[in-house]
């Protein structure tokens, strides 16, 4: 079996890095490596994950300081080459702040941090992280964020729709996001950012609902990289 290497980038203040590492290695048997943000990306990696947390304590704006980390230059190069890149929660915020994904993430309409279980709906099953899922499939998943409300102007939203860049939407009103967006991709589809946490939802023991759909996000990656789970 091919060994797949995934780099999980760790910024000062990342706090879902070890959770992501656990799920990638112990649950899906990928070779995951935690990479400190000042280090160069390891060679021969197949995918990159930017995990959740509070990089730089969310100072200034969530994700904005990490977006200027040395490692982001390398991440951008890999994005251009078409490598699968996933940003979760703070990782999504960093992708947006670094310009790899369009739009912005604003404070939730409740103005509070919000940790709960919800459902997202697959709107694009052509990305490296959704190709094992069905269009319209519901994924029970955990969310936990204070600045999770996706926002983009009308023109950008039109483009997102036109280019099939909306990957996930919420199944209920959660935080006031434009078009109920929970996750998007870049135009090429290889860079995906999402506010909900698949790494918190892919194991049945901690998911109060069905963990199978969330696990398909990881199995999609395996599928993309030519490994059968």
């Amino acid at each position: 079996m091919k060994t797949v290497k995934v780099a999980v980038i760790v910024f000062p203040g990342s706090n879902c890095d070890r959770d992501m590492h656990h799920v990638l290695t112990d649950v899906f048997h990928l070779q995951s490596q935690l990479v400190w943000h000042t280090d160069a990306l390891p060679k021969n990696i197949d995918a990159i994950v930017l995990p959740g947390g509070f990089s730089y304590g969310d100072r200034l704006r969530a994700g904005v300081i990490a977006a200027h980390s040395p490692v982001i230059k390398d991440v951008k190069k890999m994005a251009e080459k078409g490598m699968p890149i996933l940003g979760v929660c703070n990782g999504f915020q960093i992708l947006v702040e670094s310009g790899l994904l369009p739009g912005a993430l604003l404070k939730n309409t409740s103005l509070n941090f919000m940790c709960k279980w919800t459902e997202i709906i697959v709107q694009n099953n052509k990305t490296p992280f959704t190709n094992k899922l069905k269009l319209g499939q519901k994924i029970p998943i955990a969310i936990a964020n204070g600045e999770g409300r996706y926002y983009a102007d009308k023109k950008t939203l039109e483009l997102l729709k036109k280019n099939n860049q909306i990957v996930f939407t919420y199944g209920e009103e959660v935080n006031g996001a434009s078009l109920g967006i929970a996750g998007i991709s870049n135009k090429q589809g290889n860079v995906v950012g999402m506010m909900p946490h698949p790494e918190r939802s892919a194991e049945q023991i901690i998911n109060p609902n069905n963990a199978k759909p969330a696990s398909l996000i990881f199995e999609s990656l395996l599928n993309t990289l030519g490994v059968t789970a």
Partner: protein
Amino acid sequence: MSLTPQESEYLENKIGRKPNPLELQIVAAEWSEHCSYKSSKKHLRILPKEGKRVISGPGYDSGVLDVGDGYVVTVHIESHNHPSAVEPYGGAATGVGGVIRDILSAGTRPIAILDGLRFGNIEKDNHAMWLFKNAVRGIADYGNCLGIPTIGGEIEFDKCFTNYALVDVASIGFGKKENLIKNKAEKGDYVVLIGGSTGRDGIGGSQFASDKLEAENRSAVQIPDPFIEKLVIEVILEARNQKCIKAMKDLGGGGLSCAISETADALGVGIELDLSLVHKREQNMSPSELMVSESQERMLVITDLKKLVSLKKICEKFRVPYSVIGRVKEDKLMKVKLDKSTIANLPSQIVANAPLLDRPSSLPKYLKNIEKIKKPKTPQDLSKTLLRMLSNPNIASKHWVYTQYDHEVGIRTVVKPGSDGSVLRLDNGKFLAAKIDGNSKHCYVNPRDGVMGCFDEACRNVICTGAKPIGMVDHLQFGNPEDPEIFWTFKESVQAITDYAKYFQIPCVGGKVSLYNETDKGPIKPTPLIGVLGLIEKKPLVSQKIENGDLVIIVGTTKDELGGSEYYEYVHNVTGGKCPSVDMKTSKKIQDAVLDLIQSCTIKVAHDCSKGGLGIAVSKLCITNDIGCTISLEKIPSEKLSHDELLFSESHSRFLLVIKPQDENKVMALLAKSAVQHARAGVFSGKDIVFQQKTSAIVRVRVDKAQEKWLNSLGALVTHG
């Protein structure tokens, strides 16, 4: 804010001279009630601290429990009451930070936070509401940023907390036994201060907390910075992995004064430090400010020359400031220098061990007649009363609070907040259950029965997850100990905890005492808090969805014990009556029987019956499962009681078990064999919550209506006032 004349004399006798002003500041910080436990220490000695899982070591700030397979769990509890009453956001946030560092000190990673919050009547008191909202936000912002899940807790509102706040935070850590810090130091080792810079915040905080809250003293409140705390956690754990830490202590109450004196005393060495080397936030800080500042996010680490280089590299990787401030000596002195000159020089053993006090105590006068009250009249419409009880802020769902806390990060949370006890998965395949419980209303009416009830309740909650209690922590919160009547309630509580802990063989692995919790309006009610940890060897009981036809079994007896109940206090505004009391023998039998059942049968849900009694416990099951239930009151094992008493008595040692109808015979047979009081009390079905006497409904409430009250009352109160 200084020593008493007796203490000054004692100090002068011990050191054979008059202390200089800086030395006096250092000693006053360490000898404050907050740091020295001088009123309480003698009495705490009776608590049973030994147990087969307990690992004790020198200088541990947290309790350590062996959970097998080479792993340990650590636990500690602290409060931040005075600061939170003045500045709730910063006070509560730094309360989280402080207890986290105690867990870190043992060399374990913090994996969970639980918090107990208490405020005045938020329905009527805007200031109480302000304190409540901001304390919650403080905990959320701090804990969420650290990536440590807040998995549970409890909240109580009572008039006795007007203009005040109790913010208790417990934390749990997890790690390998071999990685526990050994806490040994030798002559020549280096003393390194790691983390946040030292500033003029939290000056004299421990003394501030050792007096009643009279004036707001904002400079005594510490400023939170969760980002640096997160980095400090990673620095310390990486340093632990690289074996760079010989001994460690967090800087909390009393700042450097306490950390240095207590470390030197616990390790049996001397420490010489130079204040000019401390990294500072502000210029021109005086030596005494530096010695008593309680600036947060700081750790004191002792390492040797060989490992110092690696330690520095780790700090530099995370860009965490540090300063090598001193060396370990053989002389058992704490010597403070400023550049070349010595400015304080004291035996650490003297500084770290305040002379203990024998406070007088006497039975509070108010207790004499508190049980003798005129029973309130049974309301006409008990359905209305039930709805009112469900919207009581003390009973209504706290999801407005815990959805603001990240309770999932770390991906260990198997049983989530809002349940009885919370459950975490551990790396060895076992599970850890945790719960904290307090009840100022019960403890006021009867300090002994009250605290024993809290202990029993925490055990019941943990048992409901299928866990066996393995250790406990206590947090003893009272008013001014110089008042003999208050001190009596303290002593009574410690004795009750001791009796229960011994009988149930649950060791006390940590705790904290917080006294002087009072304002101009008077002292708080006695508010001891009990935290219990339980271990699940195989599989936790995760509540299953209740379905039509499922049965509810009630275990335990409902008694005429409504003193301090939510029903008396909230509905009738009555304080007094007989407080629920725990019969340890019966309770043990019931707990063992229920735990056996959970481990051997298919129990769908096990639910503790406590605040708000049976009426609330049954309603909660219905609300959370979206199904009705019919309970036959005449079947409930009880003393002779009126309907309202039967519904709302808060008698202890009661459980509700939900089972499938086909399991009834097996479950009933096992309960009969254990010889505990029990009955099949009702069936789930329909859309109404019904309590009936024979065939006539005493209470009939629609589940959706109950849901509305229970789920939304607290949130609506916060949002709309």
